[in-house]
Protein backbone atom coordinates (compact mmCIF):
# COMPACT_ATOMS: atom_id res chain seq x y z
CA UNK A 1 0.00 0.00 0.00
CA UNK A 2 3.02 2.25 -0.10
CA UNK A 3 1.99 3.78 -3.41
CA UNK A 4 -1.65 4.30 -2.58
CA UNK A 5 -4.42 3.33 -4.99
CA UNK A 6 -4.96 6.57 -6.88
CA UNK A 7 -3.46 4.97 -9.96
CA UNK A 8 -1.74 8.14 -11.19
CA UNK A 9 -4.83 10.36 -11.28
CA UNK A 10 -3.27 12.68 -8.71
CA UNK A 11 -2.15 14.90 -11.54
CA UNK A 12 -5.54 14.94 -13.23
CA UNK A 13 -7.90 15.99 -10.46
CA UNK A 14 -7.39 17.56 -7.07
CA UNK A 15 -6.59 14.62 -4.88
CA UNK A 16 -3.36 14.19 -2.92
CA UNK A 17 -0.27 12.72 -4.45
CA UNK A 18 1.71 10.24 -2.34
CA UNK A 19 4.05 13.09 -1.32
CA UNK A 20 1.09 15.10 -0.06
CA UNK A 21 0.94 17.57 -2.94
CA UNK A 22 -2.03 18.77 -4.95
CA UNK A 23 -0.72 18.86 -8.48
CA UNK A 24 -3.78 20.57 -9.93
CA UNK A 25 -3.35 23.49 -7.56
CA UNK A 26 0.31 23.79 -8.51
CA UNK A 27 -0.63 23.74 -12.18
CA UNK A 28 -3.14 26.51 -11.48
CA UNK A 29 -0.29 28.69 -10.20
CA UNK A 30 1.65 27.98 -13.38
CA UNK A 31 -1.40 29.07 -15.37
CA UNK A 32 -1.22 32.49 -13.75
CA UNK A 33 2.24 33.05 -15.19
CA UNK A 34 1.06 31.90 -18.61
CA UNK A 35 -0.60 35.24 -19.29
CA UNK A 36 2.86 36.80 -19.24
CA UNK A 37 1.74 39.80 -17.20
CA UNK A 38 2.95 40.97 -13.79
CA UNK A 39 1.00 43.07 -11.30
CA UNK A 40 2.26 44.93 -8.25
CA UNK A 41 0.39 46.31 -5.26
CA UNK A 42 1.79 48.68 -2.61
CA UNK A 43 0.16 50.03 0.54
CA UNK A 44 1.17 53.57 1.44
CA UNK A 45 0.50 55.50 4.61
CA UNK A 46 -2.81 56.92 3.35
CA UNK A 47 -3.40 55.19 0.04
CA UNK A 48 -3.13 51.85 -1.77
CA UNK A 49 -1.92 51.41 -5.32
CA UNK A 50 -2.07 48.55 -7.83
CA UNK A 51 -0.22 48.60 -11.14
CA UNK A 52 -0.34 46.12 -13.98
CA UNK A 53 0.95 45.92 -17.51
CA UNK A 54 -1.43 46.64 -20.34
CA UNK A 55 -0.45 44.47 -23.25
CA UNK A 56 -2.57 44.73 -26.37
CA UNK A 57 -1.24 41.84 -28.47
CA UNK A 58 -3.30 42.47 -31.61
CA UNK A 59 -3.22 45.70 -33.60
CA UNK A 60 -6.90 45.25 -34.43
CA UNK A 61 -7.92 45.17 -30.74
CA UNK A 62 -9.72 48.15 -29.27
CA UNK A 63 -7.46 48.84 -26.30
CA UNK A 64 -10.15 50.75 -24.39
CA UNK A 65 -12.05 47.47 -23.95
CA UNK A 66 -9.04 45.63 -22.52
CA UNK A 67 -8.60 45.90 -18.76
CA UNK A 68 -7.49 43.87 -15.75
CA UNK A 69 -8.72 46.34 -13.14
CA UNK A 70 -12.24 45.92 -11.81
CA UNK A 71 -14.57 47.58 -9.33
CA UNK A 72 -16.03 45.06 -6.89
CA UNK A 73 -17.94 47.64 -4.86
CA UNK A 74 -17.67 51.43 -5.17
CA UNK A 75 -14.96 51.28 -2.48
CA UNK A 76 -13.18 48.02 -3.17
CA UNK A 77 -11.19 47.52 -6.36
CA UNK A 78 -9.04 44.69 -7.65
CA UNK A 79 -6.46 43.76 -10.23
CA UNK A 80 -6.64 40.30 -11.75
CA UNK A 81 -3.63 38.37 -13.03
CA UNK A 82 -3.85 35.14 -15.01
CA UNK A 83 -6.50 33.59 -17.25
CA UNK A 84 -8.83 36.29 -18.52
CA UNK A 85 -11.99 34.21 -18.46
CA UNK A 86 -11.32 32.81 -14.98
CA UNK A 87 -10.59 36.36 -13.83
CA UNK A 88 -13.95 37.62 -15.03
CA UNK A 89 -15.70 34.71 -13.38
CA UNK A 90 -14.07 35.47 -10.04
CA UNK A 91 -14.79 39.19 -10.35
CA UNK A 92 -18.46 38.52 -11.05
CA UNK A 93 -18.68 36.18 -8.07
CA UNK A 94 -17.01 38.79 -5.87
CA UNK A 95 -19.52 41.44 -6.95
CA UNK A 96 -22.45 39.17 -6.20
CA UNK A 97 -21.00 38.18 -2.81
CA UNK A 98 -20.47 41.84 -1.91
CA UNK A 99 -24.02 42.73 -2.98
CA UNK A 100 -25.50 39.84 -1.00
CA UNK A 101 -23.56 40.79 2.11
CA UNK A 102 -24.89 44.35 1.98
CA UNK A 103 -28.42 43.10 1.44
CA UNK A 104 -28.24 40.53 4.23
CA UNK A 105 -26.37 42.47 6.89
CA UNK A 106 -27.13 46.06 6.02
CA UNK A 107 -23.57 47.42 5.69
CA UNK A 108 -20.83 47.42 3.08
CA UNK A 109 -18.57 44.39 3.03
CA UNK A 110 -14.93 45.07 3.96
CA UNK A 111 -12.00 44.02 1.76
CA UNK A 112 -10.66 41.44 4.21
CA UNK A 113 -14.02 39.69 4.55
CA UNK A 114 -14.56 39.68 0.78
CA UNK A 115 -11.07 38.27 0.25
CA UNK A 116 -11.70 35.54 2.82
CA UNK A 117 -15.00 34.65 1.14
CA UNK A 118 -13.33 34.30 -2.27
CA UNK A 119 -10.49 32.30 -0.77
CA UNK A 120 -13.04 29.96 0.84
CA UNK A 121 -14.72 29.50 -2.53
CA UNK A 122 -11.35 28.79 -4.17
CA UNK A 123 -10.64 26.20 -1.48
CA UNK A 124 -13.80 24.32 -2.40
CA UNK A 125 -12.49 23.98 -5.94
CA UNK A 126 -9.36 22.32 -4.56
CA UNK A 127 -11.48 19.63 -2.95
CA UNK A 128 -14.14 19.00 -5.56
CA UNK A 129 -13.27 16.63 -8.34
CA UNK A 130 -15.74 18.04 -10.80
CA UNK A 131 -14.37 21.61 -10.75
CA UNK A 132 -10.86 22.77 -11.45
CA UNK A 133 -9.22 25.60 -9.52
CA UNK A 134 -9.32 29.02 -11.25
CA UNK A 135 -6.09 30.05 -12.97
CA UNK A 136 -6.05 33.59 -11.65
CA UNK A 137 -4.97 35.58 -8.63
CA UNK A 138 -6.79 38.62 -7.23
CA UNK A 139 -5.22 41.57 -5.44
CA UNK A 140 -7.87 43.64 -3.62
CA UNK A 141 -7.42 47.21 -2.47
CA UNK A 142 -9.62 49.41 -0.34
CA UNK A 143 -9.77 52.09 2.33
CA UNK A 144 -11.10 50.17 5.29
CA UNK A 145 -13.26 52.38 7.55
CA UNK A 146 -11.39 51.14 10.65
CA UNK A 147 -7.97 50.09 9.45
CA UNK A 148 -7.29 52.64 6.72
CA UNK A 149 -5.53 51.50 3.54
CA UNK A 150 -5.54 47.70 3.06
CA UNK A 151 -4.09 45.38 0.43
CA UNK A 152 -5.18 41.72 0.22
CA UNK A 153 -4.36 38.88 -2.12
CA UNK A 154 -6.09 35.55 -2.66
CA UNK A 155 -4.78 32.72 -4.82
CA UNK A 156 -6.07 29.47 -6.39
CA UNK A 157 -4.99 27.44 -3.36
CA UNK A 158 -7.53 29.23 -1.22
CA UNK A 159 -4.82 31.05 0.72
CA UNK A 160 -5.33 34.73 1.49
CA UNK A 161 -3.38 37.31 3.37
CA UNK A 162 -2.98 41.05 3.91
CA UNK A 163 0.19 42.63 2.56
CA UNK A 164 2.28 45.76 2.81
CA UNK A 165 3.27 45.11 -0.79
CA UNK A 166 3.04 42.17 -3.14
CA UNK A 167 3.48 41.07 -6.73
CA UNK A 168 1.79 38.41 -8.84
CA UNK A 169 2.45 37.01 -12.27
CA UNK A 170 5.25 35.98 -14.57
CA UNK A 171 7.97 37.96 -12.77
CA UNK A 172 6.58 37.79 -9.25
CA UNK A 173 9.73 36.39 -7.60
CA UNK A 174 11.91 39.19 -8.89
CA UNK A 175 9.26 41.79 -8.15
CA UNK A 176 8.74 40.53 -4.60
CA UNK A 177 12.52 40.71 -3.90
CA UNK A 178 12.59 44.26 -5.25
CA UNK A 179 9.70 45.23 -2.98
CA UNK A 180 11.29 43.56 0.06
CA UNK A 181 14.46 45.56 -0.48
CA UNK A 182 12.67 48.86 -0.93
CA UNK A 183 10.36 48.38 2.04
CA UNK A 184 12.95 46.89 4.40
CA UNK A 185 13.35 50.14 6.29
CA UNK A 186 9.55 50.51 6.55
CA UNK A 187 9.45 53.94 4.90
CA UNK A 188 6.44 56.24 5.12
CA UNK A 189 5.03 56.19 1.63
CA UNK A 190 3.01 59.12 0.36
CA UNK A 191 0.52 58.46 -2.41
CA UNK A 192 2.83 59.70 -5.16
CA UNK A 193 5.79 57.76 -3.78
CA UNK A 194 3.72 54.57 -3.65
CA UNK A 195 2.59 54.92 -7.27
CA UNK A 196 6.09 55.69 -8.45
CA UNK A 197 7.62 52.83 -6.47
CA UNK A 198 5.12 50.41 -8.02
CA UNK A 199 5.89 51.65 -11.53
CA UNK A 200 9.65 51.50 -10.86
CA UNK A 201 9.31 47.94 -9.56
CA UNK A 202 7.69 46.79 -12.76
CA UNK A 203 10.12 48.77 -14.90
CA UNK A 204 13.06 47.26 -13.07
CA UNK A 205 12.04 43.59 -13.16
CA UNK A 206 10.80 43.75 -16.73
CA UNK A 207 13.71 45.94 -17.90
CA UNK A 208 11.28 48.15 -19.76
CA UNK A 209 10.66 51.85 -20.06
CA UNK A 210 6.93 52.24 -19.94
CA UNK A 211 4.71 54.51 -21.95
CA UNK A 212 1.51 55.71 -20.29
CA UNK A 213 -0.57 53.49 -22.58
CA UNK A 214 1.26 50.34 -21.45
CA UNK A 215 0.22 50.62 -17.80
CA UNK A 216 -2.98 50.36 -15.82
CA UNK A 217 -2.97 51.93 -12.36
CA UNK A 218 -5.75 51.68 -9.78
CA UNK A 219 -5.78 53.68 -6.55
CA UNK A 220 -7.73 54.36 -3.37
CA UNK A 221 -6.70 57.33 -1.27
CA UNK A 222 -7.83 58.87 1.98
CA UNK A 223 -9.34 61.94 0.26
CA UNK A 224 -10.94 59.89 -2.49
CA UNK A 225 -11.77 56.55 -0.88
CA UNK A 226 -13.62 55.25 -3.94
CA UNK A 227 -11.56 52.96 -6.17
CA UNK A 228 -10.58 54.58 -9.45
CA UNK A 229 -8.20 53.97 -12.31
CA UNK A 230 -5.78 56.72 -13.28
CA UNK A 231 -6.19 58.54 -16.58
CA UNK A 232 -3.44 58.46 -19.18
CA UNK A 233 -2.46 62.04 -18.34
CA UNK A 234 -2.04 61.20 -14.63
CA UNK A 235 0.08 58.15 -15.47
CA UNK A 236 2.18 60.33 -17.75
CA UNK A 237 2.73 62.78 -14.87
CA UNK A 238 4.03 59.99 -12.63
CA UNK A 239 6.34 58.67 -15.35
CA UNK A 240 7.76 62.14 -15.82
CA UNK A 241 8.31 62.48 -12.07
CA UNK A 242 10.20 59.18 -12.00
CA UNK A 243 12.37 60.23 -14.95
CA UNK A 244 13.16 63.56 -13.26
CA UNK A 245 14.23 61.89 -10.07
CA UNK A 246 16.76 59.77 -11.88
Amino acid sequence: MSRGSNAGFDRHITIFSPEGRLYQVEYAFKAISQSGLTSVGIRGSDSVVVVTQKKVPDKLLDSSTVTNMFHLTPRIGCVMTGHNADSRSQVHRARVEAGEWKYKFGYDITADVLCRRLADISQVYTQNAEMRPLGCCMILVAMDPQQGPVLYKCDPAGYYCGFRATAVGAKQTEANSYLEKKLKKKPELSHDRAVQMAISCLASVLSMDFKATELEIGVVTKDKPKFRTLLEAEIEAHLVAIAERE
Partner: protein
Amino acid sequence: MLGEAEPQWLSEEVKTGTTIIAIEFNGGVVLGSDSRVSAGESVVNRVMNKLSPLHDKIYCALSGSAADAQTIAEMVNYQLDVHSMEIGEDPQVRSAATLVKNISYKYKEELSAHLIVAGWDRREGGQVFATLKGLLTRQPFAVGGSGSSYVYGFVDAEYRKGMNKKECQQFVVNTLSLAMKRDGSSGGVAYLVTIDEHGTEEKVILGNDLPTFFDQ
Protein backbone atom coordinates in the same frame (compact mmCIF):
# COMPACT_ATOMS: atom_id res chain seq x y z
CA MET B 1 -66.77 42.01 27.20
CA LEU B 2 -64.82 39.23 28.78
CA GLY B 3 -61.71 38.12 27.00
CA GLU B 4 -61.28 41.45 25.14
CA ALA B 5 -58.59 40.69 22.62
CA GLU B 6 -55.20 42.43 22.36
CA PRO B 7 -55.12 46.08 21.25
CA GLN B 8 -56.22 46.64 17.69
CA TRP B 9 -52.84 47.93 16.54
CA LEU B 10 -51.23 44.61 17.28
CA SER B 11 -53.46 42.73 14.91
CA GLU B 12 -53.87 45.34 12.18
CA GLU B 13 -51.42 45.31 9.35
CA VAL B 14 -48.99 48.20 9.43
CA LYS B 15 -49.75 50.36 6.43
CA THR B 16 -48.10 53.49 5.25
CA GLY B 17 -51.44 55.33 4.81
CA THR B 18 -49.57 57.88 2.81
CA THR B 19 -49.44 60.50 0.23
CA ILE B 20 -46.56 60.20 -2.23
CA ILE B 21 -45.79 62.23 -5.29
CA ALA B 22 -43.00 62.49 -7.84
CA ILE B 23 -42.62 65.03 -10.63
CA GLU B 24 -40.11 65.50 -13.41
CA PHE B 25 -38.54 68.78 -14.46
CA ASN B 26 -35.99 69.58 -17.13
CA GLY B 27 -32.82 68.14 -15.63
CA GLY B 28 -34.17 66.13 -12.71
CA VAL B 29 -37.01 65.04 -10.48
CA VAL B 30 -38.60 66.00 -7.17
CA LEU B 31 -40.09 63.33 -4.88
CA GLY B 32 -42.25 64.05 -1.86
CA SER B 33 -43.97 62.06 0.86
CA ASP B 34 -45.72 62.47 4.17
CA SER B 35 -44.47 60.66 7.27
CA ARG B 36 -47.36 58.85 8.93
CA VAL B 37 -47.37 55.06 9.45
CA SER B 38 -50.64 53.71 10.78
CA ALA B 39 -51.76 50.35 12.14
CA GLY B 40 -55.50 50.59 12.07
CA GLU B 41 -56.43 53.66 14.09
CA SER B 42 -53.09 54.25 15.78
CA VAL B 43 -50.11 56.07 14.39
CA VAL B 44 -47.15 53.75 14.77
CA ASN B 45 -44.52 56.16 13.43
CA ARG B 46 -45.15 59.85 12.81
CA VAL B 47 -41.79 60.67 11.24
CA MET B 48 -41.05 57.86 8.81
CA ASN B 49 -39.18 58.79 5.65
CA LYS B 50 -40.98 57.04 2.83
CA LEU B 51 -38.49 58.13 0.18
CA SER B 52 -36.07 55.24 -0.07
CA PRO B 53 -32.83 55.29 -2.09
CA LEU B 54 -32.43 52.59 -4.74
CA HIS B 55 -29.17 54.07 -5.99
CA ASP B 56 -27.26 57.37 -5.77
CA LYS B 57 -29.58 59.16 -8.19
CA ILE B 58 -32.65 56.92 -8.12
CA TYR B 59 -35.18 57.01 -5.30
CA CYS B 60 -38.54 55.37 -4.78
CA ALA B 61 -41.59 56.48 -2.81
CA LEU B 62 -43.28 53.79 -0.70
CA SER B 63 -47.00 53.30 -0.14
CA GLY B 64 -49.33 50.50 0.89
CA SER B 65 -48.12 47.87 3.30
CA ALA B 66 -44.99 49.20 5.04
CA ALA B 67 -43.22 45.83 5.18
CA ASP B 68 -43.99 44.91 1.58
CA ALA B 69 -42.86 48.27 0.24
CA GLN B 70 -39.62 48.32 2.26
CA THR B 71 -38.77 44.79 1.25
CA ILE B 72 -39.25 45.51 -2.44
CA ALA B 73 -37.09 48.63 -2.13
CA GLU B 74 -34.30 46.72 -0.34
CA MET B 75 -34.31 43.90 -2.89
CA VAL B 76 -34.13 46.30 -5.82
CA ASN B 77 -31.37 48.26 -4.06
CA TYR B 78 -29.35 45.03 -3.80
CA GLN B 79 -29.96 44.12 -7.44
CA LEU B 80 -28.98 47.61 -8.61
CA ASP B 81 -25.77 47.49 -6.52
CA VAL B 82 -24.51 44.43 -8.39
CA HIS B 83 -25.93 45.61 -11.74
CA SER B 84 -24.16 48.98 -11.56
CA MET B 85 -20.84 47.24 -10.80
CA GLU B 86 -21.29 44.94 -13.77
CA ILE B 87 -22.14 47.67 -16.28
CA GLY B 88 -19.50 50.00 -14.86
CA GLU B 89 -21.74 53.07 -14.65
CA ASP B 90 -24.83 54.42 -12.90
CA PRO B 91 -27.97 52.41 -13.71
CA GLN B 92 -30.81 53.82 -15.75
CA VAL B 93 -33.99 54.89 -13.97
CA ARG B 94 -35.86 52.61 -16.34
CA SER B 95 -33.81 49.64 -15.08
CA ALA B 96 -34.71 50.39 -11.49
CA ALA B 97 -38.38 50.80 -12.38
CA THR B 98 -38.35 47.54 -14.34
CA LEU B 99 -36.83 45.65 -11.41
CA VAL B 100 -39.54 47.04 -9.11
CA LYS B 101 -42.24 46.22 -11.64
CA ASN B 102 -41.02 42.64 -12.06
CA ILE B 103 -41.30 41.96 -8.34
CA SER B 104 -44.65 43.75 -8.05
CA TYR B 105 -46.11 41.81 -10.96
CA LYS B 106 -44.74 38.38 -10.07
CA TYR B 107 -46.02 38.58 -6.50
CA LYS B 108 -49.04 40.74 -7.13
CA GLU B 109 -51.37 38.40 -5.23
CA GLU B 110 -49.20 38.35 -2.12
CA LEU B 111 -47.98 41.92 -2.00
CA SER B 112 -49.91 45.09 -1.49
CA ALA B 113 -47.55 47.95 -2.09
CA HIS B 114 -47.19 50.62 -4.72
CA LEU B 115 -43.82 52.18 -5.39
CA ILE B 116 -43.22 55.26 -7.50
CA VAL B 117 -39.68 55.20 -8.93
CA ALA B 118 -38.01 58.47 -9.92
CA GLY B 119 -34.48 59.62 -10.60
CA TRP B 120 -31.94 61.07 -12.99
CA ASP B 121 -29.66 59.31 -15.46
CA ARG B 122 -27.46 60.77 -18.14
CA ARG B 123 -29.32 59.27 -21.08
CA GLU B 124 -32.87 60.49 -20.46
CA GLY B 125 -32.46 63.05 -17.67
CA GLY B 126 -35.19 63.17 -15.03
CA GLN B 127 -37.82 60.43 -15.21
CA VAL B 128 -40.81 59.32 -13.12
CA PHE B 129 -42.25 55.81 -13.37
CA ALA B 130 -45.42 54.42 -11.81
CA THR B 131 -45.44 50.68 -11.03
CA LEU B 132 -48.93 50.18 -9.63
CA LYS B 133 -49.96 46.50 -9.45
CA GLY B 134 -47.15 45.47 -11.79
CA LEU B 135 -47.60 47.90 -14.63
CA LEU B 136 -44.77 50.13 -15.82
CA THR B 137 -45.48 53.54 -17.22
CA ARG B 138 -43.45 56.71 -17.51
CA GLN B 139 -45.34 59.87 -16.57
CA PRO B 140 -44.53 63.56 -16.18
CA PHE B 141 -45.71 63.23 -12.58
CA ALA B 142 -47.31 60.54 -10.41
CA VAL B 143 -49.23 60.54 -7.14
CA GLY B 144 -49.98 57.56 -4.94
CA GLY B 145 -51.20 56.36 -1.59
CA SER B 146 -54.49 56.88 0.19
CA GLY B 147 -54.06 60.65 0.30
CA SER B 148 -53.69 60.91 -3.44
CA SER B 149 -57.43 60.56 -4.06
CA TYR B 150 -58.03 63.87 -2.31
CA VAL B 151 -55.63 65.78 -4.53
CA TYR B 152 -56.21 64.45 -8.05
CA GLY B 153 -58.26 67.53 -8.80
CA PHE B 154 -55.57 69.83 -7.48
CA VAL B 155 -52.68 68.25 -9.35
CA ASP B 156 -54.63 68.00 -12.60
CA ALA B 157 -55.58 71.67 -12.42
CA GLU B 158 -52.26 73.04 -11.19
CA TYR B 159 -49.77 71.03 -13.23
CA ARG B 160 -48.13 72.90 -16.07
CA LYS B 161 -45.57 71.58 -18.48
CA GLY B 162 -42.09 73.04 -18.24
CA MET B 163 -42.03 73.97 -14.54
CA ASN B 164 -38.56 74.55 -13.20
CA LYS B 165 -37.00 72.98 -10.10
CA LYS B 166 -38.28 75.53 -7.62
CA GLU B 167 -41.80 75.48 -9.04
CA CYS B 168 -41.83 71.67 -8.90
CA GLN B 169 -40.71 71.71 -5.28
CA GLN B 170 -43.49 74.16 -4.43
CA PHE B 171 -46.02 72.07 -6.35
CA VAL B 172 -45.00 68.96 -4.39
CA VAL B 173 -45.15 70.73 -1.03
CA ASN B 174 -48.57 72.22 -1.79
CA THR B 175 -49.96 68.84 -2.87
CA LEU B 176 -48.63 67.07 0.21
CA SER B 177 -49.94 69.76 2.49
CA LEU B 178 -53.48 69.54 1.09
CA ALA B 179 -53.53 65.75 1.15
CA MET B 180 -52.17 65.56 4.68
CA LYS B 181 -54.93 67.87 5.87
CA ARG B 182 -57.76 65.82 4.37
CA ASP B 183 -56.52 62.20 4.58
CA GLY B 184 -56.63 60.62 8.03
CA SER B 185 -53.84 58.21 7.13
CA SER B 186 -51.43 60.90 6.00
CA GLY B 187 -49.75 63.49 8.16
CA GLY B 188 -46.69 64.40 10.14
CA VAL B 189 -43.87 66.13 8.30
CA ALA B 190 -43.14 66.37 4.58
CA TYR B 191 -39.99 64.82 3.14
CA LEU B 192 -38.63 66.17 -0.10
CA VAL B 193 -35.89 64.71 -2.30
CA THR B 194 -34.57 66.62 -5.33
CA ILE B 195 -32.35 64.72 -7.76
CA ASP B 196 -30.47 66.26 -10.65
CA GLU B 197 -27.21 65.93 -12.54
CA HIS B 198 -25.22 67.45 -9.69
CA GLY B 199 -26.52 65.35 -6.84
CA THR B 200 -29.31 64.41 -4.48
CA GLU B 201 -30.73 66.77 -1.88
CA GLU B 202 -32.94 65.60 1.00
CA LYS B 203 -35.09 68.03 2.92
CA VAL B 204 -37.61 67.86 5.75
CA ILE B 205 -40.41 70.39 6.15
CA LEU B 206 -41.91 70.33 9.61
CA GLY B 207 -45.68 70.36 10.07
CA ASN B 208 -45.97 74.00 11.08
CA ASP B 209 -43.82 75.14 8.15
CA LEU B 210 -46.12 73.62 5.54
CA PRO B 211 -48.16 76.01 3.39
CA THR B 212 -51.69 76.72 4.59
CA PHE B 213 -54.77 77.10 2.45
CA PHE B 214 -58.34 78.33 2.75
CA ASP B 215 -59.51 76.90 6.05
CA GLN B 216 -56.26 76.82 8.01
